[in-house]
Protein backbone atom coordinates (compact mmCIF):
# COMPACT_ATOMS: atom_id res chain seq x y z
CA UNK A 1 0.00 0.00 0.00
CA UNK A 2 1.33 3.42 -1.02
CA UNK A 3 0.59 6.34 1.32
CA UNK A 4 0.60 9.96 0.17
CA UNK A 5 -1.19 13.28 0.74
CA UNK A 6 -2.81 13.70 -2.65
CA UNK A 7 -3.57 10.98 -5.18
CA UNK A 8 -3.57 12.63 -8.59
CA UNK A 9 -5.43 10.65 -11.22
CA UNK A 10 -3.99 11.59 -14.58
CA UNK A 11 -0.38 12.51 -15.31
CA UNK A 12 -1.15 15.10 -17.98
CA UNK A 13 0.11 18.69 -17.77
CA UNK A 14 -2.42 19.72 -15.12
CA UNK A 15 -1.78 16.70 -12.90
CA UNK A 16 1.96 17.26 -13.20
CA UNK A 17 1.89 20.95 -12.35
CA UNK A 18 -0.35 20.27 -9.36
CA UNK A 19 2.57 18.32 -7.85
CA UNK A 20 4.57 21.55 -7.90
CA UNK A 21 1.88 23.63 -6.22
CA UNK A 22 1.25 20.89 -3.67
CA UNK A 23 4.97 20.68 -2.98
CA UNK A 24 5.07 24.37 -2.13
CA UNK A 25 2.64 23.72 0.72
CA UNK A 26 4.51 20.54 1.72
CA UNK A 27 1.97 18.06 0.40
CA UNK A 28 3.23 14.93 -1.32
CA UNK A 29 1.60 13.54 -4.44
CA UNK A 30 1.30 10.22 -6.18
CA UNK A 31 0.18 10.16 -9.81
CA UNK A 32 -1.73 7.35 -11.51
CA UNK A 33 -2.22 7.12 -15.26
CA UNK A 34 -3.53 4.44 -17.59
CA UNK A 35 -0.92 5.46 -20.16
CA UNK A 36 2.62 4.17 -19.84
CA UNK A 37 4.22 7.62 -19.99
CA UNK A 38 3.48 10.96 -18.30
CA UNK A 39 2.03 13.82 -20.35
CA UNK A 40 -1.50 12.65 -21.11
CA UNK A 41 -2.90 13.95 -24.40
CA UNK A 42 0.29 15.94 -25.03
CA UNK A 43 2.34 12.76 -25.14
CA UNK A 44 -0.30 10.45 -26.58
CA UNK A 45 -2.01 12.62 -29.18
CA UNK A 46 0.15 15.58 -30.18
CA UNK A 47 3.75 15.50 -28.87
CA UNK A 48 5.04 17.26 -32.00
CA UNK A 49 2.42 20.00 -32.13
CA UNK A 50 3.30 23.50 -31.00
CA UNK A 51 1.28 25.16 -28.24
CA UNK A 52 1.06 28.95 -28.37
CA UNK A 53 -0.93 29.90 -25.27
CA UNK A 54 1.33 28.97 -22.40
CA UNK A 55 2.21 32.31 -20.77
CA UNK A 56 5.84 33.19 -21.27
CA UNK A 57 6.33 30.66 -24.08
CA UNK A 58 5.58 32.19 -27.50
CA UNK A 59 5.66 28.60 -28.73
CA UNK A 60 6.43 25.28 -27.09
CA UNK A 61 6.16 21.73 -28.41
CA UNK A 62 3.69 19.66 -26.41
CA UNK A 63 6.37 17.04 -25.69
CA UNK A 64 8.79 19.72 -24.56
CA UNK A 65 6.23 21.19 -22.18
CA UNK A 66 5.83 17.77 -20.56
CA UNK A 67 9.62 17.39 -20.23
CA UNK A 68 9.83 20.82 -18.60
CA UNK A 69 7.00 20.05 -16.18
CA UNK A 70 8.75 16.82 -15.18
CA UNK A 71 11.89 18.84 -14.42
CA UNK A 72 9.90 21.46 -12.54
CA UNK A 73 8.25 18.92 -10.21
CA UNK A 74 11.31 16.71 -9.70
CA UNK A 75 12.28 18.41 -6.36
CA UNK A 76 8.96 17.27 -4.92
CA UNK A 77 9.65 13.61 -5.71
CA UNK A 78 6.20 12.56 -6.89
CA UNK A 79 5.35 8.86 -7.04
CA UNK A 80 4.14 7.42 -10.34
CA UNK A 81 1.96 4.42 -11.09
CA UNK A 82 1.83 4.36 -14.87
CA UNK A 83 0.15 1.97 -17.27
CA UNK A 84 -2.53 1.22 -14.69
CA UNK A 85 -6.07 2.50 -14.78
CA UNK A 86 -7.69 4.00 -11.68
CA UNK A 87 -10.39 1.43 -11.07
CA UNK A 88 -11.94 1.54 -7.61
CA UNK A 89 -12.18 4.30 -5.03
CA UNK A 90 -13.25 3.49 -1.49
CA UNK A 91 -13.39 5.33 1.81
CA UNK A 92 -11.37 3.61 4.54
CA UNK A 93 -12.26 3.50 8.26
CA UNK A 94 -9.78 6.24 9.08
CA UNK A 95 -11.48 8.56 6.57
CA UNK A 96 -8.87 8.16 3.88
CA UNK A 97 -9.49 7.28 0.27
CA UNK A 98 -8.11 4.04 -1.07
CA UNK A 99 -7.61 3.85 -4.81
CA UNK A 100 -7.12 0.47 -6.46
CA UNK A 101 -5.74 0.29 -9.99
CA UNK A 102 -6.47 -2.19 -12.75
CA UNK A 103 -3.33 -4.09 -11.74
CA UNK A 104 -4.23 -4.15 -8.05
CA UNK A 105 -1.90 -1.39 -6.84
CA UNK A 106 -3.38 0.29 -3.75
CA UNK A 107 -2.80 3.93 -2.87
CA UNK A 108 -4.10 5.68 0.21
CA UNK A 109 -4.53 9.43 0.80
CA UNK A 110 -6.86 11.95 2.44
CA UNK A 111 -7.32 13.82 -0.84
CA UNK A 112 -7.92 12.73 -4.43
CA UNK A 113 -7.44 15.12 -7.35
CA UNK A 114 -8.92 13.89 -10.60
CA UNK A 115 -6.93 15.44 -13.44
CA UNK A 116 -8.08 12.83 -15.91
CA UNK A 117 -8.38 15.00 -19.02
CA UNK A 118 -10.72 13.29 -21.44
CA UNK A 119 -10.71 10.09 -19.40
CA UNK A 120 -8.62 6.99 -19.87
CA UNK A 121 -7.46 6.01 -23.30
CA UNK A 122 -8.90 2.71 -24.43
CA UNK A 123 -8.60 0.86 -27.72
CA UNK A 124 -11.18 1.88 -30.31
CA UNK A 125 -13.48 -1.04 -30.98
CA UNK A 126 -14.75 -1.46 -34.52
CA UNK A 127 -18.54 -1.38 -34.80
CA UNK A 128 -18.97 -5.11 -35.39
CA UNK A 129 -22.15 -6.29 -33.78
CA UNK A 130 -20.96 -9.39 -31.93
CA UNK A 131 -17.35 -8.35 -31.35
CA UNK A 132 -17.71 -8.43 -27.56
CA UNK A 133 -18.66 -12.12 -27.70
CA UNK A 134 -15.24 -12.92 -29.17
CA UNK A 135 -13.08 -10.68 -26.97
CA UNK A 136 -10.28 -12.85 -25.58
CA UNK A 137 -11.73 -15.70 -27.66
CA UNK A 138 -9.91 -14.68 -30.80
CA UNK A 139 -10.35 -10.91 -30.77
CA UNK A 140 -7.53 -8.86 -29.20
CA UNK A 141 -7.30 -5.06 -29.22
CA UNK A 142 -3.83 -5.00 -27.69
CA UNK A 143 -0.93 -7.33 -28.41
CA UNK A 144 0.74 -8.15 -25.13
CA UNK A 145 2.83 -11.14 -26.15
CA UNK A 146 3.36 -11.81 -29.86
CA UNK A 147 4.33 -15.41 -29.01
CA UNK A 148 0.65 -16.05 -28.39
CA UNK A 149 0.18 -16.00 -32.17
CA UNK A 150 2.94 -18.48 -33.04
CA UNK A 151 1.69 -20.91 -35.67
CA UNK A 152 -1.73 -19.22 -35.79
CA UNK A 153 -3.66 -17.54 -38.57
CA UNK A 154 -4.04 -13.84 -37.79
CA UNK A 155 -6.04 -11.02 -39.38
CA UNK A 156 -4.90 -7.51 -38.43
CA UNK A 157 -7.14 -4.53 -39.22
CA UNK A 158 -6.08 -0.89 -39.50
CA UNK A 159 -3.84 1.37 -41.54
CA UNK A 160 -1.72 3.15 -38.97
CA UNK A 161 1.68 2.55 -37.45
CA UNK A 162 0.63 -0.08 -34.96
CA UNK A 163 -1.24 -2.13 -37.59
CA UNK A 164 1.80 -2.00 -39.89
CA UNK A 165 4.41 -2.67 -37.20
CA UNK A 166 2.55 -5.59 -35.70
CA UNK A 167 1.88 -7.12 -39.13
CA UNK A 168 5.63 -7.02 -39.77
CA UNK A 169 6.47 -8.62 -36.42
CA UNK A 170 3.75 -11.24 -36.69
CA UNK A 171 4.81 -12.16 -40.25
CA UNK A 172 7.77 -13.97 -38.67
CA UNK A 173 5.82 -15.61 -35.89
CA UNK A 174 2.33 -16.44 -37.07
CA UNK A 175 1.53 -19.14 -39.59
CA UNK A 176 -0.38 -16.65 -41.74
CA UNK A 177 -0.84 -12.88 -41.47
CA UNK A 178 -3.41 -10.82 -43.32
CA UNK A 179 -3.85 -7.07 -43.06
CA UNK A 180 -7.18 -5.51 -43.92
CA UNK A 181 -7.35 -1.76 -44.53
CA UNK A 182 -10.02 0.63 -45.74
CA UNK A 183 -7.80 2.27 -48.35
CA UNK A 184 -5.01 1.18 -50.69
CA UNK A 185 -2.52 3.64 -49.23
CA UNK A 186 -1.11 3.38 -45.73
CA UNK A 187 -0.10 6.17 -43.42
CA UNK A 188 2.56 5.52 -40.83
CA UNK A 189 6.33 5.54 -41.06
CA UNK A 190 7.56 5.21 -44.63
CA UNK A 191 9.94 2.32 -43.97
CA UNK A 192 7.17 0.36 -42.24
CA UNK A 193 4.93 0.88 -45.26
CA UNK A 194 7.73 -0.30 -47.56
CA UNK A 195 8.44 -3.34 -45.42
CA UNK A 196 4.76 -4.33 -45.45
CA UNK A 197 4.66 -3.95 -49.23
CA UNK A 198 7.79 -6.13 -49.58
CA UNK A 199 6.34 -8.78 -47.28
CA UNK A 200 3.12 -8.66 -49.29
CA UNK A 201 5.08 -9.23 -52.52
CA UNK A 202 6.90 -12.20 -51.06
CA UNK A 203 3.60 -13.62 -49.85
CA UNK A 204 4.36 -13.31 -46.13
CA UNK A 205 1.56 -10.82 -45.55
CA UNK A 206 -1.74 -11.11 -47.33
CA UNK A 207 -2.97 -7.57 -48.03
CA UNK A 208 -6.69 -6.93 -48.27
CA UNK A 209 -7.27 -3.29 -49.19
CA UNK A 210 -10.35 -1.18 -49.89
CA UNK A 211 -11.98 -3.49 -47.44
CA UNK A 212 -13.10 -3.81 -43.85
CA UNK A 213 -14.13 -6.49 -41.41
CA UNK A 214 -17.87 -6.36 -40.89
CA UNK A 215 -18.71 -9.54 -39.01
CA UNK A 216 -17.33 -12.40 -36.96
CA UNK A 217 -18.43 -15.99 -36.87
CA UNK A 218 -17.51 -19.02 -34.80
CA UNK A 219 -18.97 -21.16 -32.14
CA UNK A 220 -17.88 -19.29 -29.02
CA UNK A 221 -14.36 -19.21 -30.42
CA UNK A 222 -13.51 -17.09 -33.45
CA UNK A 223 -13.34 -19.03 -36.71
CA UNK A 224 -14.00 -16.60 -39.55
CA UNK A 225 -14.12 -12.88 -40.24
CA UNK A 226 -16.60 -11.51 -42.74
CA UNK A 227 -14.90 -9.08 -45.13
CA UNK A 228 -16.60 -6.39 -47.14
CA UNK A 229 -14.37 -5.49 -50.09
CA UNK A 230 -15.10 -2.90 -52.77
CA UNK A 231 -16.53 -4.48 -55.91
CA UNK A 232 -16.93 -7.93 -54.38
CA UNK A 233 -19.58 -9.90 -52.59
CA UNK A 234 -18.90 -10.20 -48.86
CA UNK A 235 -16.71 -13.20 -48.13
CA UNK A 236 -15.26 -14.93 -45.10
CA UNK A 237 -11.64 -15.15 -44.08
CA UNK A 238 -10.51 -17.99 -41.83
CA UNK A 239 -8.37 -16.89 -38.90
CA UNK A 240 -7.70 -17.85 -35.29
CA UNK A 241 -7.23 -14.23 -34.27
CA UNK A 242 -8.68 -10.88 -35.29
CA UNK A 243 -6.62 -7.91 -34.10
CA UNK A 244 -8.25 -4.54 -34.82
CA UNK A 245 -5.72 -1.72 -34.25
CA UNK A 246 -7.55 1.59 -34.62
CA UNK A 247 -5.78 3.68 -32.03
CA UNK A 248 -7.05 4.81 -28.67
CA UNK A 249 -9.99 6.93 -27.66
CA UNK A 250 -10.72 8.40 -24.25
CA UNK A 251 -13.51 7.15 -21.98
CA UNK A 252 -14.58 8.30 -18.51
CA UNK A 253 -14.55 4.61 -17.58
CA UNK A 254 -14.75 3.41 -13.97
CA UNK A 255 -14.53 6.97 -12.56
CA UNK A 256 -18.11 7.49 -13.70
CA UNK A 257 -19.19 4.98 -11.00
CA UNK A 258 -17.62 6.77 -8.03
CA UNK A 259 -20.70 8.78 -7.07
CA UNK A 260 -19.50 12.11 -8.42
CA UNK A 261 -21.92 14.53 -10.05
CA UNK A 262 -21.46 14.42 -13.81
CA UNK A 263 -22.60 16.63 -16.68
CA UNK A 264 -21.62 15.97 -20.31
CA UNK A 265 -18.86 13.50 -19.42
CA UNK A 266 -17.26 15.92 -16.96
CA UNK A 267 -17.31 16.25 -13.17
CA UNK A 268 -19.24 19.19 -11.78
CA UNK A 269 -17.09 21.32 -9.45
CA UNK A 270 -17.39 24.39 -7.24
CA UNK A 271 -15.15 27.09 -8.70
CA UNK A 272 -14.16 28.26 -5.21
CA UNK A 273 -11.73 25.34 -4.94
CA UNK A 274 -12.65 22.87 -7.72
CA UNK A 275 -14.12 20.46 -5.20
CA UNK A 276 -16.65 17.87 -6.31
CA UNK A 277 -19.76 16.81 -4.42
CA UNK A 278 -17.67 14.34 -2.38
CA UNK A 279 -15.50 15.85 0.38
CA UNK A 280 -11.78 15.49 -0.29
CA UNK A 281 -12.25 14.76 -3.99
CA UNK A 282 -11.38 17.49 -6.47
CA UNK A 283 -11.51 17.60 -10.27
CA UNK A 284 -9.18 19.83 -12.27
CA UNK A 285 -8.41 20.42 -15.94
CA UNK A 286 -10.39 19.12 -18.90
CA UNK A 287 -12.29 16.59 -16.79
CA UNK A 288 -14.28 19.17 -14.80
CA UNK A 289 -17.08 21.48 -15.77
CA UNK A 290 -18.52 24.72 -14.39
CA UNK A 291 -20.17 27.80 -15.88
CA UNK A 292 -17.66 29.45 -18.19
CA UNK A 293 -15.35 26.43 -18.33
CA UNK A 294 -12.58 26.56 -20.91
CA UNK A 295 -10.57 23.44 -21.68
CA UNK A 296 -7.16 25.05 -21.68
CA UNK A 297 -3.91 23.86 -20.10
CA UNK A 298 -3.55 27.39 -18.75
CA UNK A 299 -6.87 27.16 -16.90
CA UNK A 300 -6.01 23.72 -15.57
CA UNK A 301 -2.83 25.12 -13.99
CA UNK A 302 -4.90 27.76 -12.21
CA UNK A 303 -7.44 25.18 -11.05
CA UNK A 304 -4.72 22.90 -9.67
CA UNK A 305 -3.14 25.80 -7.80
CA UNK A 306 -6.34 26.85 -6.05
CA UNK A 307 -7.34 23.25 -5.42
CA UNK A 308 -4.12 22.58 -3.51
CA UNK A 309 -4.84 25.47 -1.08
CA UNK A 310 -8.21 23.93 -0.30
CA UNK A 311 -6.70 20.45 -0.01
CA UNK A 312 -4.23 21.77 2.57
CA UNK A 313 -7.05 23.16 4.71
CA UNK A 314 -8.98 19.90 4.32
CA UNK A 315 -5.97 17.82 5.43
CA UNK A 316 -4.81 20.22 8.17
CA UNK A 317 -7.96 21.98 9.42
CA UNK A 318 -6.10 23.37 12.48
CA UNK A 319 -3.10 24.78 10.69
CA UNK A 320 -2.76 28.21 9.17
CA UNK A 321 -1.58 28.28 5.60
CA UNK A 322 0.57 31.25 4.76
CA UNK A 323 1.01 31.78 1.07
CA UNK A 324 4.59 32.33 -0.05
CA UNK A 325 5.95 33.50 -3.38
CA UNK A 326 8.61 31.24 -4.91
CA UNK A 327 10.68 34.35 -5.63
CA UNK A 328 10.80 34.97 -1.86
CA UNK A 329 10.87 31.47 -0.42
CA UNK A 330 12.50 29.60 -3.31
CA UNK A 331 11.61 26.01 -4.14
CA UNK A 332 12.36 23.78 -1.20
CA UNK A 333 12.12 20.23 -2.43
CA UNK A 334 11.56 17.11 -0.38
CA UNK A 335 14.43 15.01 0.94
Amino acid at each position, binding site marked *: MIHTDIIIIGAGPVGLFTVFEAGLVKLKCHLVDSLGKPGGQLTEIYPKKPIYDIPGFPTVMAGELVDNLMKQIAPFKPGFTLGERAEKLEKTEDKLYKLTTSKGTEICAPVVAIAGGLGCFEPRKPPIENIEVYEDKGVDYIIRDPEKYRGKKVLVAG*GGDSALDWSIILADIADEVALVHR*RTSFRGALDSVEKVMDLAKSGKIHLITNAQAVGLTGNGILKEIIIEEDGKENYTYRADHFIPLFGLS*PKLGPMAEWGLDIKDNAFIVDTVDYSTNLPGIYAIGDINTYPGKLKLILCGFHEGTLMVQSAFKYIHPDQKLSFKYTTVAGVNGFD
Partner: protein
Amino acid sequence: MENNLIKVTVIDREGKSHTLDAPTDMSMNMMEVCKSYELPVEGLCGGMALCASCHMYVLSDHELSVPSEDEENMLDQAFFVKENSRLGCQIKITDDINGLVVELAQV
Protein backbone atom coordinates in the same frame (compact mmCIF):
# COMPACT_ATOMS: atom_id res chain seq x y z
CA MET B 1 -23.95 37.48 -47.51
CA GLU B 2 -25.60 39.66 -44.93
CA ASN B 3 -23.61 40.24 -41.72
CA ASN B 4 -21.03 37.67 -42.78
CA LEU B 5 -23.49 34.87 -42.11
CA ILE B 6 -24.09 31.81 -44.22
CA LYS B 7 -26.61 29.00 -43.80
CA VAL B 8 -25.57 25.42 -43.24
CA THR B 9 -27.82 22.45 -42.61
CA VAL B 10 -26.92 19.68 -40.21
CA ILE B 11 -28.90 16.44 -40.07
CA ASP B 12 -28.50 14.88 -36.64
CA ARG B 13 -28.33 11.16 -35.84
CA GLU B 14 -32.10 11.02 -35.37
CA GLY B 15 -32.57 12.35 -38.89
CA LYS B 16 -33.70 15.78 -37.72
CA SER B 17 -32.59 18.68 -39.90
CA HIS B 18 -31.16 21.87 -38.35
CA THR B 19 -30.50 24.92 -40.52
CA LEU B 20 -27.97 27.11 -38.78
CA ASP B 21 -26.49 30.57 -39.22
CA ALA B 22 -22.71 30.33 -39.38
CA PRO B 23 -20.39 33.36 -39.26
CA THR B 24 -17.70 33.54 -41.93
CA ASP B 25 -15.58 36.10 -40.08
CA MET B 26 -14.73 34.10 -36.96
CA SER B 27 -12.39 31.40 -38.32
CA MET B 28 -14.93 28.75 -37.41
CA ASN B 29 -15.32 25.24 -38.73
CA MET B 30 -18.31 22.89 -38.95
CA MET B 31 -17.39 21.08 -35.74
CA GLU B 32 -17.41 24.36 -33.82
CA VAL B 33 -20.64 25.52 -35.40
CA CYS B 34 -22.34 22.25 -34.41
CA LYS B 35 -21.02 22.54 -30.87
CA SER B 36 -22.12 26.15 -30.53
CA TYR B 37 -25.67 25.08 -31.39
CA GLU B 38 -25.33 22.20 -28.90
CA LEU B 39 -25.65 19.53 -31.55
CA PRO B 40 -24.14 16.20 -30.45
CA VAL B 41 -20.65 16.62 -31.89
CA GLU B 42 -17.90 15.91 -29.41
CA GLY B 43 -14.86 17.57 -30.99
CA LEU B 44 -12.65 15.96 -28.35
CA CYS B 45 -9.29 17.03 -29.74
CA GLY B 46 -10.40 20.60 -30.26
CA GLY B 47 -10.10 20.66 -34.04
CA MET B 48 -6.65 19.21 -34.71
CA ALA B 49 -7.94 16.37 -36.93
CA LEU B 50 -6.81 14.01 -34.21
CA CYS B 51 -9.89 12.25 -32.88
CA ALA B 52 -12.53 11.79 -35.61
CA SER B 53 -15.29 12.60 -33.13
CA CYS B 54 -16.67 15.21 -35.58
CA HIS B 55 -17.01 12.72 -38.44
CA MET B 56 -19.80 13.82 -40.82
CA TYR B 57 -21.03 13.11 -44.34
CA VAL B 58 -21.28 15.89 -46.90
CA LEU B 59 -24.63 15.53 -48.67
CA SER B 60 -24.68 18.66 -50.84
CA ASP B 61 -22.45 18.92 -53.92
CA HIS B 62 -20.22 21.75 -52.66
CA GLU B 63 -16.61 21.64 -53.78
CA LEU B 64 -14.74 21.43 -50.49
CA SER B 65 -11.01 21.66 -49.96
CA VAL B 66 -9.22 18.35 -50.48
CA PRO B 67 -8.72 16.50 -47.17
CA SER B 68 -5.23 16.90 -45.75
CA GLU B 69 -3.04 13.89 -45.06
CA ASP B 70 -3.83 14.31 -41.33
CA GLU B 71 -7.54 14.20 -42.02
CA GLU B 72 -7.27 11.13 -44.28
CA ASN B 73 -5.19 9.41 -41.63
CA MET B 74 -7.75 10.15 -38.97
CA LEU B 75 -10.60 8.94 -41.16
CA ASP B 76 -8.69 5.65 -41.41
CA GLN B 77 -9.26 5.20 -37.71
CA ALA B 78 -12.90 6.19 -37.82
CA PHE B 79 -15.71 3.78 -38.48
CA PHE B 80 -18.69 4.00 -40.86
CA VAL B 81 -16.47 5.91 -43.30
CA LYS B 82 -17.98 6.58 -46.73
CA GLU B 83 -16.89 8.35 -49.92
CA ASN B 84 -18.35 11.62 -48.63
CA SER B 85 -16.88 11.37 -45.12
CA ARG B 86 -15.14 14.43 -43.71
CA LEU B 87 -14.04 15.69 -40.33
CA GLY B 88 -16.21 18.67 -39.44
CA CYS B 89 -13.25 20.45 -37.86
CA GLN B 90 -11.54 20.57 -41.24
CA ILE B 91 -14.48 22.23 -43.04
CA LYS B 92 -13.92 25.96 -42.72
CA ILE B 93 -16.88 28.30 -42.66
CA THR B 94 -16.48 30.43 -45.78
CA ASP B 95 -18.88 32.00 -48.28
CA ASP B 96 -18.18 29.09 -50.67
CA ILE B 97 -20.04 26.63 -48.50
CA ASN B 98 -23.25 28.62 -48.12
CA GLY B 99 -26.09 26.06 -48.20
CA LEU B 100 -23.86 23.15 -47.22
CA VAL B 101 -25.75 20.07 -46.03
CA VAL B 102 -24.04 17.55 -43.77
CA GLU B 103 -25.18 14.55 -41.81
CA LEU B 104 -23.55 13.50 -38.52
CA ALA B 105 -21.96 10.06 -38.67
CA GLN B 106 -22.70 7.42 -36.08
CA VAL B 107 -20.36 7.18 -33.14
